[in-house]
């Protein structure tokens, strides 16, 4: 016998010595480690099968055995259960959101096909709507061996310019199921209500609509009305102004618009639509909705609230977002906290402040005094400063600016070889047009003015308004909007990215170009090249403190960090497990190198920047790892800035910026400059 000699004792066999007198441990070992059946275990232990069963249950209860389900799947299961309970669904399937490369629509199609295959019965009449997910479902369903099935189009037809028409979805599904296919031989939207009445009286169409009314199962997609939605390419809503619907519609099912509560939204299309209406839809006993994606959250929520769907197939992220919108927060799986209890949280943070509302003005006053030879005030514009040397005739003026809280940004970069003037906003708020205009006038040397600011809606609006005002006064302005934060949007939508610490390099390149008396277009072109070649990413360990409330603006868990943070004390793109300095550096470097794709021998400039309260010691540790990685990639470092260059008040964290250099950028970087925050001699 595999487990060695056994001796019979009272109530059963005696187990090997290593199990001591603990029959639970023995039974658990045989079951989970040796993979024996409960029957075999009963024989070996000399007890009844019922006892084995009881032992195993006991072993789990006492923690001798702990069962772990793959966290991704576990999360999906628990979300599905919550979704089902919350919306009173018949059933619910939630698939993991990470498909390891396979598109969500295809995976949703697979999952929907599984659900349909499992629930469909012989004799069913199954209606199907249209769309990418529906076609993917129809494509991937396997024959079920059922008999006397009918598949019917839920709506009339649409333009044939798309591959996922109602006709295509219905015929593909009926072919796969071996069902009879019943089309609706009319357009989904007709030109007038009269035409609709006329068509519905046609015997062929009336018969088809009759079959549709007999549907006992419907499989439907849920469409958002967001601009990127495929509904706008379907021809369904062509030439209809959404204003007619008073913006009440948040989604669409079977070509019918639905409100946030899942009710029909009355509008000009309603009496011209041929297909199932929402009231009839609700009478179908089994209504399987298959949809996912963050753009659809609002529409899916509406469909669930309105009971238009009673079996839901979606993915974990979408489901969680739907539940979050209902105030049900299903967090990420709980991680075991090896450190034990949480660190005490700072509820009130001590600050050197007088009245919080005076902080910005008082800081400006102090800065002007500290850097007397470099900065001077601008008359009549308390929130703008200029370089003490003033504009040089024939030189392009450089104006920078943004909210306060980034010190030494932005006034730290004013001086010879850098900016000529700066506009200063409230904490993390863009400056209004007036100080930007004052800075522009102060910087004007008759050769035009260059504005450089980060890509935030407030900065863009206010700088644009100021540029218009300056143009009206005869000063040509070129604007460079920086977008170096690679974590803030994917590379395909680079223009949507935030402008963060990379600004420091862009200011330097532009300042040097202006100082070399290059013309405005050339200065703009170089500044643009600099921002295109800057790659920044940040990680935060602790949130920043609001000056008004003196409380942290959000919470980061004791063993968590925020990845992809910007510079306004906001959360990152994602929360991640806290890791070592080297691992955190690698996280950033991996992203930067992937996107920069430097060749061996390429040169970069580096900025290892504290977001506020991370000390120099930690920055050096990070820099050490950063350089190891760059050396391994064969990338050389032309110049390193390390310290507080572009902060987010007192946030603890770091950002790394790498700028890929060419000879021209390297020369401009080495050009002399003198400012409160940066000096090159």
């Amino acid at each position, binding site marked *: 016998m595999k487990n060695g000699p056994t001796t019979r004792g009272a109530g059963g066999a005696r187990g090997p010595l290593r199990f001591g007198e603990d029959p639970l441990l023995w039974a658990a070992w045989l079951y989970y480690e040796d993979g024996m059946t409960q029957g075999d275990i009963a024989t070996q232990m000399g007890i009844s099968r019922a006892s084995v069963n009881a032992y195993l249950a006991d072993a789990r209860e006492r923690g001798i055995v702990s069962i772990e389900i793959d966290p991704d799947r576990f999360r999906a299961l628990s979300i599905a259960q919550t979704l089902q309970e919350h919306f009173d669904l018949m059933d619910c399937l939630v698939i993991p959101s990470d498909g390891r490369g396979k598109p969500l629509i295809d995976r949703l199609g697979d999952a929907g096909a599984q659900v349909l295959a499992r629930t469909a019965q012989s004799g069913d009449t199954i209606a199907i709507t249209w769309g990418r997910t529906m076609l993917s479902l129809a494509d991937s369903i396997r024959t079920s061996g059922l008999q006397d099935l009918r598949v019917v189009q839920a709506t009339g037809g649409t333009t044939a310019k798309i591959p996922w028409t109602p006709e295509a979805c219905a015929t593909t599904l009926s072919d796969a199921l071996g069902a009879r296919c019943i089309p609706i031989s009319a357009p989904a939207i007709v030109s007038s209500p009269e035409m609709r009445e006329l068509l519905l009286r046609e015997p062929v169409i009336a018969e088809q609509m009759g079959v549709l009314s007999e549907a006992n199962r419907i499989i439907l997609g849920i469409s958002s*009305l*967001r*601009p990127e939605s495929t509904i706008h390419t379907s021809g369904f809503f062509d030439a209809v102004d959404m204003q007619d619907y*008073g*913006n*009440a519609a*948040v989604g669409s099912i079977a070509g019918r618009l639905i409100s*946030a509560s899942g009710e029909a939204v009355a509008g000009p299309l309603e009496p011209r639509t041929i297909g199932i209406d929402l009231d009839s839809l609700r009478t179908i006993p089994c209504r399987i909705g298959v949809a996912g994606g*963050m*753009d659809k*959250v*609002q529409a899916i*929520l509406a469909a669930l609230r309105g009971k238009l769907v009673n079996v839901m197939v979606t993915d974990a*992220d979408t489901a969680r*977002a*739907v539940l*979050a*919108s209902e*105030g049900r*927060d299903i967090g990420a799986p709980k991680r075991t906290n090896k450190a034990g209890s949480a660190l005490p949280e700072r509820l009130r943070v001590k600050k050197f402040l007088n009245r919080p*509302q005076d902080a910005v003005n008082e800081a400006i006053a102090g800065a002007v005094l500290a850097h007397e030879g470099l900065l001077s005030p601008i008359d009549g514009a308390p929130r703008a400063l200029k370089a003490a040397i003033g504009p040089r005739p024939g030189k392009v003026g450089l104006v920078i600016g943004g*909210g306060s809280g980034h010190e030494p940004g932005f006034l730290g970069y004013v001086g010879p070889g850098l900016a000529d003037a700066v506009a200063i*906003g*409230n*904490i*993390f*708020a*863009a*400056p*209004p*047009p*007036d100080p930007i205009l004052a800075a522009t006038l102060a910087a004007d040397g008759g050769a035009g003015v260059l504005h450089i600011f980060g890509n*935030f*809606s*407030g900065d863009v*609006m*206010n700088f644009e*308004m100021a540029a218009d005002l300056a143009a009206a006064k005869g000063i040509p302005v070129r604007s460079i909007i920086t977008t170096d*934060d690679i974590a*803030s*949007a994917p590379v395909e939508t680079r223009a*949507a990215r*935030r402008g963060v610490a990379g600004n420091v390099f862009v200011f330097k390149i532009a300042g040097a170009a202006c100082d070399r008396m290059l013309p405005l277009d050339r200065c703009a072109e170089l500044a643009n090249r600099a921002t295109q070649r800057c790659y920044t990413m940040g990680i935060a360990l602790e949130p920043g403190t*609001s000056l*008004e*409330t003196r409380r942290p*603006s*959000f919470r980061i868990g004791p063993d968590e960090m925020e990845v992809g943070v*910007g510079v*306004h*004390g*906001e*959360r990152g*793109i*994602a929360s991640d497990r806290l890791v070592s300095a080297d691992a955190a550096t690698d996280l950033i470097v991996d992203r930067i190198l992937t996107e920069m794709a430097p060749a061996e021998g390429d040169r970069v400039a580096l900025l290892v920047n504290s977001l506020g309260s991370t000390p120099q010691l930690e920055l050096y540790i990070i820099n050490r790892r950063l350089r190891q990685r760059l050396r391994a990639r064969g990338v050389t470092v032309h110049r390193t800035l390390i310290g507080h260059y572009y902060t987010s008040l007192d946030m603890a964290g770091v950002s790394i910026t790498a700028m890929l250099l060419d000879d021209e950028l390297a020369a401009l970087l080495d050009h002399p400059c003198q400012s409160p925050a940066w000096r090159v001699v």
Partner: protein
Amino acid sequence: MFTRNDLTLLFRVLAERMGAEQDYLAELDGEIGDADHGVAMSVGFAAAAKALSEGEADAPRLADGMVLAARALLNEIGATTGPLYASALLHAAKLLGQETEIPLARLPEVVVAISEGVAARGLGKPGDKTMLDAWAPAAHVARAGLMAGQDVLDTMTKAAQAAAEGAEATRAMMAAKGRAARLGPRSLGHLDPGAASAAALLDSMAQWVAAKAGRSVQ
């Protein structure tokens, strides 16, 4: 009638409301933005009310008042909120033309103008999870009320209600504009602070109309 003095009084009420909502708005903004919306709205509307009050003699037309308020908001707030509300009030100024007073029944037109001004400046669309998600449904109700010749208090009350519902609906939206847009899916489940403050403004407007008409809001 709605007079130039009424405009000052209305903005005082709005400023008071924004002061009262300051902490709540800051908290909402802390979740998905940079926590500055509470201060911005409170300080900005206080400055607008002050400018309206001080400029009453020099700027007697309603449009002048709107321009004063717009400039005060713009230069006090900056950020995103400043230009958006400045544009909104400049649209309202255009609507009011040379008038020194208008019938109270025309107040819903101001709501429509504000909504259009916000949309024109921000280039946003409903569903982007912005203040427009409160203003646009309110404007729709205001337009319908004007067309139907509905009682002004009734229209303003319904507009405020539509704005509140619109703001609540931003929970299910993923931000497509503004700073929260970088949070992507993480913005879901949270109220948009700009929509929340817009709903509060409309609620105060409806209550002001009720007080003016000597009735209470149902």
